């Protein structure tokens, strides 16, 4: 569908941006007086050194990729979903509530973990859908709405784990922490590897499958076509009989559902109990991954892997070479800024 040179023009600039950012990273490491070889080795070990490191990076990449895919889908309808953080939080809350609801853990056939995951997706979807409804009903800019909803969800989560009436575990001792009870084993997302020493969960194949479906939907389906039409020309789409409002709500619902699912997987696959700060900035990082992917699902997967492994490496680098993991933030920020800036040179031709 595209020539090699066109492909290069598309992926070249982001690649250069990543390389430039990494170069800056190296300079900073040297500038801080750390031993470069030691730092790099630590980074490598942390990112790829053992099964656990790889698994942890993959799990992180899964969360980022889900949020990113959701972003790309909404973006097809020209909607910018910046509410990933809140959608993850809502997914986490819903998943926790369902997992802790006794009948759920007793469900057969893996439904015990599937139902809470679906609930998480639904909750995240509802949170995104609200922004969609506002957009169609009162024209509220979805960037503003999703951002505000994100903050609200973050504090809702805080409230949930602070209040015994909500999800906080019973205060058996005066030292009971403000978090939910650990969820029952049956509701955990199954491990692919069978061992927590390399805890890759079923979340990975689920995400890959969803990515494939998303790519197909965007490229080939009627729904994807209609999203494009709505995004490119809402009035024209309406005249062509497309339900514009419905597609706007669906697009944001789907974006939110992906975020919610990410939250569910984080809870049921890794964390097992709900705490404040549960979403840990993955919503924002996932948004960035989605943006950098420039509407390509493959791009989302690549970006998610990059950021996922970079964070793991960063932790190891701090441990092994004393380079603060704040450096990883700097690199991420640089990559975002550079790629966003470079987009100009890519878009210049197709402007207007």
């Amino acid at each position: 569908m595209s020539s090699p040179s066109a492909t290069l023009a598309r992926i070249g600039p982001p690649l250069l941006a990543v390389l430039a950012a990494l170069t800056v990273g190296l300079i900073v490491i040297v500038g801080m007086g750390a031993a470069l070889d030691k730092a790099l080795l630590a980074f490598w070990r942390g990112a790829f050194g053992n099964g656990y490191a790889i698994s942890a990076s993959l799990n992180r990449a899964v969360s980022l990729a889900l949020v990113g895919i959701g972003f790309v889908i909404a973006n097809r309808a020209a909607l910018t979903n910046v509410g990933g953080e809140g959608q993850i939080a809502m997914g986490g809350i819903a998943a926790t509530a369902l997992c802790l609801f006794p009948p759920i853990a007793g469900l057969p056939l893996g439904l015990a973990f599937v139902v809470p995951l679906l609930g998480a997706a639904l909750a995240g979807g509802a949170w995104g859908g609200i922004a969609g409804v506002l957009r169609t009903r009162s024209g509220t800019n979805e960037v503003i709405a999703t951002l505000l909803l994100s903050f609200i969800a973050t504090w809702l989560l805080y409230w949930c784990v602070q209040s015994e009436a909500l999800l906080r575990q019973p205060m058996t001792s005066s030292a009971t922490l403000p978090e939910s009870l650990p969820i029952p084993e049956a509701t955990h997302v199954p491990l692919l590897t069978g061992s927590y020493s390399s805890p890759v969960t079923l979340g990975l194949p689920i995400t890959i499958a969803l990515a494939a479906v998303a790519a197909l939907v965007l490229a080939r389906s009627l729904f994807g076509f209609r999203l494009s039409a709505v995004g490119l020309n809402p009035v024209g789409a309406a005249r062509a009989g497309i339900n514009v409002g419905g597609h706007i709500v669906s697009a944001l619902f789907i974006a939110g559902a992906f975020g919610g699912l990410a939250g569910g997987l984080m809870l049921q696959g890794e964390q097992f109990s709900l705490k404040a700060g549960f979403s840990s900035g993955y919503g924002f990082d996932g948004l960035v991954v989605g943006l950098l992917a420039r509407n390509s699902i493959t791009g989302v997967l690549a970006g998610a892997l990059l950021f996922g492994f970079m964070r793991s490496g960063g932790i190891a680098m701090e441990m092994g070479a004393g380079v603060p993991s704040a450096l990883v933030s700097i690199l991420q920020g640089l990559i975002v800024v550079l790629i966003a800036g470079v987009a100009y040179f890519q878009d210049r031709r197709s402007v207007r």
Partner: protein
Amino acid sequence: MSFELLAVFLASTIRLAIPLLFAATGELVSERAGVVNMSVEGMMLAGAFGGAVGAAMTGSPWLGLVFAVLTVLPIALLQSVLTNSLRANQIVTGIGINILVLGMTTLGYRALFGARSREVIPGFDAVPVPGLAQLPVLGPVFTQIWLVWLAFLVAAAVGWMLSRTGLGIVLRGIGDDPEAVAKSGAPVGALRHGAVLFTGVMSALGGAFLSIGDIHTFTEGMTNGAGYLAIVAVIFGNWSLWRTVLACLLFGAATALQFQLPALGIVVPNALLIMLPYLLAFLAVAGLVGRQTAPRALAQPFWK
């Protein structure tokens, strides 16, 4: 509520509102000119950092303030070039800059102050306003550092500028229809750059207020979302200056309430109070509190 407590509540409200007020005033100008700076958060943090570093190095909070502005200007320039010259997505670049600044200030603070500093940073002290500070009940409200009064002054000046000067008309025009303004011969690009740089300066002052004004120290990530809250204030204020000022004060009051309510023995979930500004802003944009009218060309790049 006793009168003393009321006075403390008001004073606390004002102090908590001031960083927002600085940043929101700057952001308002920029948004009226059609540019959203998600990077306000990062610019405030850089301002807090620059102010602290400058004051610690020179021993003078005044120079610290200058330092704060000098630290933020390149960041604002980066934001401006990205959004106005390269027409990059305003939301993305803003978030990218925030991540970048958080990393840089954390790293920079540790590099400059060492990992374990107990250094107290010279800062501005509260000065009573002669006459007013002696008022029986409201006295404490008028004992503030001078930056507080500057914030109100700048806000008033910006309000005047937007409604009464040619510059104000052009800025508002650019936010609604930059192409039309360009046809009138105004330098749209330069004005948008200027608006973003102004936001930078104001964010720097807001950040410096936190570090060398209010607290006399810098801590990692100390703005803690204040920048986002400033943007929310502009939205909640429906892009009008006086309403934005009110929004900042309201948000300040909601935060201050957290400490007044326990003293009064009233139990409200903390989460609810912290959530309040966002909830209010959300209700506002949802159309439940009047009609929102954003500048028409908000967040849209201008192609000459």
